[in-house]
């Protein structure tokens, strides 16, 4: 190897060590084509959801008896539904419910699960045993069945569906945080922080939490995908977004009754769910690789 080549690789290595972990992860993430594609699709759906009224010329809840179940055309690109509503308008406005449900329910799961996981993993003993058994009990009830039961008892609405999905997703975050804390708390830098007399809450929040964030970020991204499917499932069953407000799940429910006469009603909402969920899965997989310390 020439001196020049040696110099270049040495400066690259130096640049890599100077780079912040977040920047390095971002650089690795955008090298993955799947993750970039996923990010682009998510960004597109966020833009659609935010600027929905500016993008589609039709009101998503306005019915028209003269436009009932019209096939896709130049006026109505995705066709119309059983009440003459524009399917594209309902898909675009429906993105709001799906994305909100995905983010808010995972936010609830993080807000409850991470502190409990930190407490269980850091304190150990009786508190750990108690939190762990409650987590085991919740994990024993399959995710969607628990969410349906909770949504049924809370009452059908988008807000309650988000709470039900959030609560059902919480045990995953408790277990993940607890496991991560248990492996990090024996590290030298945590021992050093303890030896310096830092209080427990400070060690947990300042020294442990930032080091377990990568794992939580990956799980949160994948959980958003699962939460979007769960919201669509609850709305499909009539336990989520209530009519006439648009939701991809409830659109699929209506579409099922008109499969022979208006199949387009079933294609677009399903495709929208699939694309958003696929994108979050692609980003989650990409983040997992990008944040893996063993990866070069």
């Amino acid at each position, binding site marked *: 190897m020439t001196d020049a080549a040696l110099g270049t690789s040495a400066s690259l290595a130096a640049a890599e060590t100077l780079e912040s972990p977040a920047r390095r992860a971002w650089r690795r993430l955008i090298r993955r084509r799947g993750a970039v594609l996923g990010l682009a699709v998510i960004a597109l759906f966020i833009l659609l959801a935010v600027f929905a009224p500016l993008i589609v010329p039709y009101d998503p809840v306005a019915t028209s008896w003269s436009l009932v179940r019209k096939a896709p055309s130049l006026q109505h690109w995705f066709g119309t539904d059983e009440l003459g509503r524009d399917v594209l308008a309902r898909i675009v406005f429906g993105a709001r419910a799906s994305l909100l449900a995905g983010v808010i329910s995972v936010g609830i799961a993080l807000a409850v699960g991470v502190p409990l996981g930190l407490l269980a993993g850091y304190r150990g003993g009786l508190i750990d045993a108690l939190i762990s058994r409650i987590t085991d*009990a*919740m994990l024993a009830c399959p995710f969607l069945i*628990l969410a349906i039961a909770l949504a049924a008892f809370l009452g059908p609405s988008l807000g309650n569906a988000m709470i039900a999905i959030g609560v059902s997703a919480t045990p995953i975050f408790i277990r993940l945080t607890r496991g991560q804390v248990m492996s990090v708390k024996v590290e030298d830098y945590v021992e050093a922080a303890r030896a310096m007399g830092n209080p427990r809450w400070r060690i947990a929040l300042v020294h442990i939490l930032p080091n377990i964030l990568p794992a939580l970020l990956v799980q949160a991204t994948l959980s958003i995908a699962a939460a979007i499917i769960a919201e669509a*499932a609850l709305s*499909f069953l009539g336990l989520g977004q209530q009519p006439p407000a648009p939701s991809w799940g409830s659109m699929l429910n209506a579409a099922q009754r008109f499969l022979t006469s208006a199949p387009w009603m079933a294609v677009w909402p*399903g495709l929208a769910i699939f694309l958003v969920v696929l994108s979050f899965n692609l980003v989650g997989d990409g983040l997992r690789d990008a944040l893996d310390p063993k990866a070069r």
Partner: protein
Amino acid sequence: MLNFLAKRLAQLIPTLFFVSLLIFSLQHLLPGDPALVMAGEERDPAVIEQIRQQYHLDQPIPVQYAYWVKGVLMGDFGESLRNKMPVSSLIAQKLPVTMQIAGMAIVVAFLIGIPAGIISAVKMGTAWDYGANLFALWGISTPNFWLGIMLIFLFSVELGWLPASGYVPLSENWRASLAASVMPAFVLGNAIAAILMRHTRSAMLQVLESDYVRTARAKGLSERTVILKHAMRNALTPIITLGALELGTLLSGAVLTEQIFSIPGFGKLIVDAVFNRDYAVVQGVVLTTATIYITLNLIADIAYILVNPRLRG
């Protein structure tokens, strides 16, 4: 082994206690007076009073819980408000239907997921590998209720090959039963196949890099023998236990699949119960699902120890 079993069973007791607490407390999420909500449209004070007494709602909460647990332990999950039948009888009626579909779905998942995972690992970096990974991503990201609707459109509405809905018991007419179950089983098994494929791939990749596989190759064994006899046997052990655990996921997926294909099983039971405000049935279904899941978890743990000699002792 006995020590492990004793420890594992001891862990089950608090878990089951919290499961029962969780399911019992569901009823207290109901806004307002649970007796009024359970009565639904019925406003007769005598009926409301009867519900209050039947569910011991006039007693303190710990006493209500004690009554409920006592009933559950004796197999009494309460009575369905809609069918006027014991919840346990309803569950016993519906569970075999779901088990048939779930069993077929597991077969579909193993038949697709494991070969796809093995091929993907053996042909790493080739078009086969990319294809299998794309299949896995598709399987994980496709909502099963949409897949079900699309399959009905294609195979029932357009081609007319398969019935769009309904259920025929295997014992009654096996041909009709298979025809009615093949789409729901594929819809349910598809996502599990994707998960199995990913796990099989990573387990195979790990095993293919191990010393004993290198030794087998160095001995001059054919690649086919190395993969099928040496690598696959070790890689598949954890995958089979994983497959058993996925039965819990199947029960979850069955809720929507049975709704779409109008299958009168366990999943449809909970959905109908939700809409009829038949809360005792909802609680009974969640409790049964959790018990099945916990039992499978235990069996999978024991099976894993039995097939892995290094963990015994």
